[in-house]
């Protein structure tokens, strides 16, 4: 990077900030809180998920600080147990599940389809209120009594614990509704509101990813709803559904819980994969390598993901036959992911790649997805899982995917689409620095955790045998680096919101459909009727007027 980033103002890119956009079309609080505009609802979701990310991050730091020493460090055992429960619940239900669909899906799905809004705008707003209310209830429950069951609230511990688990469960139940409403809205939108010219195989890959995600949201979340109700009922009334003393079966809980929670991880990762498909094409100025395969593999992951839940029960005493069946199916999901990875790398071949923060996040994403994904396949190899189950190896695996893949995707989306959503550019140098810190910090945090799992350290341990100390200290050091990276991002993005350079319509020179509208878009999305003559992500015949990229790199 030589000179500071400046824009070469070019008439076609229109580097003047649009006078009227969705951002200033009504400036009262009421116009935001009662909006039907999918873009404003996306911003509302962004506020919610950023609060969740912050809270979840704080809880994570408390955990890692406590784990600096083998014995008690800064908090006591009960508080620690509440901390990892809080961290898991907040991160999963308040951040990971809603983030990319709720923010970027809401903002861009209609625009990418040439639609003026989602199918049911009022239900869209309702889903945000449901999300906020459920989150508030869950947090309140966690504050007044503090559930200490872990986010997986296994029975019979969860049904007999003296901590206040009922409001937490009801909060989760309600947040689930938000997820269902969003998914439902998106499915109907994709089926009914595509503009003429947008056939199924002309849809951007982000839309395919969100479509697959929405199917899972709609089908799997009700089972979680039922499970939370059952646990709440048993905890309150002593029903005995999961209590062997009354004829119940604790393993039934595990099956019901994981029937949702395994597809849930695909709710988290599929949208991130969709983001990567979008960003990689823009960053490499290249068509996607294998459009149909990537689109179909998203559906494949969604479908096969429904049948793999039993790999969370390998050590629960289930029969070898069941274990084998679930293991084989879990492997198939790995194959679909491998297809995507090869196709993404293939996209870079003969591309024109720009070294920007989104590209760093793509690199991070690719490496972490491959490593995390393959450790997933390793875990699905049943005999190995006997050693690794419920140890830090599993923790490292899912953080590699959830943080390494999903959050990299989130950060790539945030940077890639920041100019479109807010009309301004972020400072590239700071972004590169932060991206580097995040990738480094992430490795430093979670690679020691793979080794801890190998060494045999179980998860959810407040105190641990002394031989695990040095790896824990290393992991905490990495976490501090990671936290620092996030803080830097928060600061420069906040500043860029107001003082960033005006972006213009298409600072990346991207051929994604959403870059044809102004930045930020007007409330009706389009200032001229959208015309869809090109396929998504095509760069081989860029017309003259779009050839001049407005972002000097």
């Amino acid at each position: 990077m030589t000179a500071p980033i400046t824009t070469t103002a070019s008439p076609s890119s229109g580097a003047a900030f649009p006078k009227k956009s969705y951002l200033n079309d009504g400036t009262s609080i009421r116009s935001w809180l009662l909006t039907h505009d999918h873009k404003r609802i996306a911003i509302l979701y962004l506020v919610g998920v950023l609060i969740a990310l912050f809270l979840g991050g704080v809880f994570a730091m408390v955990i890692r600080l406590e784990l600096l020493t083998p014995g008690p460090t800064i908090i006591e055992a009960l508080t620690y147990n509440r901390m990892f429960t809080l961290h898991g619940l907040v991160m999963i239900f308040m951040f990971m599940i809603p983030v990319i669909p709720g923010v970027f899906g809401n903002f861009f799905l209609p625009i990418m389809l040439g639609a003026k809004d989602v199918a049911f705008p009022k239900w869209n707003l309702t889903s945000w209120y449901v999300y906020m209310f459920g989150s508030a209830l869950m947090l309140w429950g966690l504050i007044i009594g503090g559930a200490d069951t872990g986010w997986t609230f296994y029975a019979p511990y969860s049904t007999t614990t003296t901590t206040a688990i009922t409001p937490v469960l009801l909060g989760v139940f309600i947040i689930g509704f938000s997820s269902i409403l969003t998914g439902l809205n998106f499915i109907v939108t994709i089926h009914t509101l595509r503009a003429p010219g947008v056939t199924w195989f002309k849809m951007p890959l982000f839309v395919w990813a969100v479509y697959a995600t929405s199917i899972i949201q709609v089908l799997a979340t009700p089972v979680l709803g039922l499970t939370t109700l059952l646990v709440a009922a048993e905890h309150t009334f002593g029903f005995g559904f999961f209590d062997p003393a009354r004829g119940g079966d604790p393993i039934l809980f595990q099956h019901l819980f994981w029937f949702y929670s395994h597809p849930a991880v695909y709710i988290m990762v599929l949208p991130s994969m969709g983001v990567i498909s979008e960003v990689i094409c823009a960053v490499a100025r290249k068509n996607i390598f294998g459009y149909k395969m990537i689109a179909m593999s998203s559906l494949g992951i969604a479908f096969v993901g429904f049948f793999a839940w039993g790999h969370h029960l390998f050590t629960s005493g289930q029969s070898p036959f069941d274990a084998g069946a679930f293991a084989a199916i879990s492997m198939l999901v790995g194959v679909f992911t491998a297809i995507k990875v090869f196709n993404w790398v293939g996209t870079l071949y003969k591309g024109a790649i720009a070294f920007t923060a989104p590209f760093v996040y793509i690199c991070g994403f690719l490496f972490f997805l491959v490593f995390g994904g393959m450790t997933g396949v390793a875990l699905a190899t049943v005999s190995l899982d006997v050693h690794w189950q419920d140890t830090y190896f599993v923790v490292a695996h899912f953080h590699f995917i959830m943080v390494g893949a999903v959050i990299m995707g989130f950060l790539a989306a945030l940077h890639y689409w920041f100019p479109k959503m807010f009309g301004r550019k972020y400072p590239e140098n700071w972004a590169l620095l932060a991206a580097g810190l995040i990738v480094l910090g992430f490795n430093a945090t979670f690679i020691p955790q793979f080794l801890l799992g190998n060494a045999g350290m179980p998860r959810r341990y407040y105190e641990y045998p002394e031989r695990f100390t040095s790896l824990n200290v290393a992991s905490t050091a990495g976490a501090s680096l990671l936290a620092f990276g996030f803080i830097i991002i928060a600061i420069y993005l906040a500043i860029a919101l107001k003082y960033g350079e005006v972006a213009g319509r298409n600072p990346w020179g991207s051929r994604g459909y959403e870059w044809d509208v102004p930045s930020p878009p007007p409330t009706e999305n389009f200032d001229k009727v959208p015309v869809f003559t090109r396929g998504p992500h095509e760069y081989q015949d860029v017309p003259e007027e779009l050839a001049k990229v407005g972002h000097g790199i």
Partner: protein
Amino acid sequence: MESSAARKMTAEGWLEPPPLPHHYETEENHKHALRFGMWLFLGTEVLLFAGIFVGYFVFRTYFPEAFEQAGRHLSLFWGTANTLVLLTSSLTVATAHYYAEHGKNRNAFWLLTASIAMGGMFLCIKGIEYHDKFVELALPGKFFHYNEITAPGGPIFYVVYFFATGLHALHVIVGMSLLTWVAVRCWRKEFSPQYYAPVENAGLYWHLVDLVWIFLYPLLYLV
């Protein structure tokens, strides 16, 4: 939904249909979206109940005698009565839908009222059954003290019974609320051949509630 106050009465005796939402190109597209969305939502309800049916089958496999005995001790009379009540109410709802589609709002109103009344009757009968259970102490989990069930697993049967029928009853209440709201709109003559989607969707919900009972009834009362 758009306020009915803004819509004018037409010559045929019903309010003109609400304006097309700005992001839909055609009314047909809008109708298709509403119908599709409703069916998707019903799918989620099916999955919600699927879990409890799974629980039923699992525990029935563990405790077959207790489930048989307990099933025989449920009141076949009241259970069958409830089934007939719900089936009839589904018929009246379907007929109400037909009338609303033809703009005969008053007829639709009365039929919906009948459906709501039958929903209320269903709940009363359920209440009678529940009361009997409370008296006999045929209750779930730790409250179970019913000597008629001699095989192990009695408490679990009642867990499944109360949870499944309780969740169902909750849905009946929700369904009744939806039907009430739609009935009020019928009274205001809002529906016409161009606009009857709310009646259709509320009706679909009610049919689902009925369908869940059609599965619960034989599993609990008959086998």
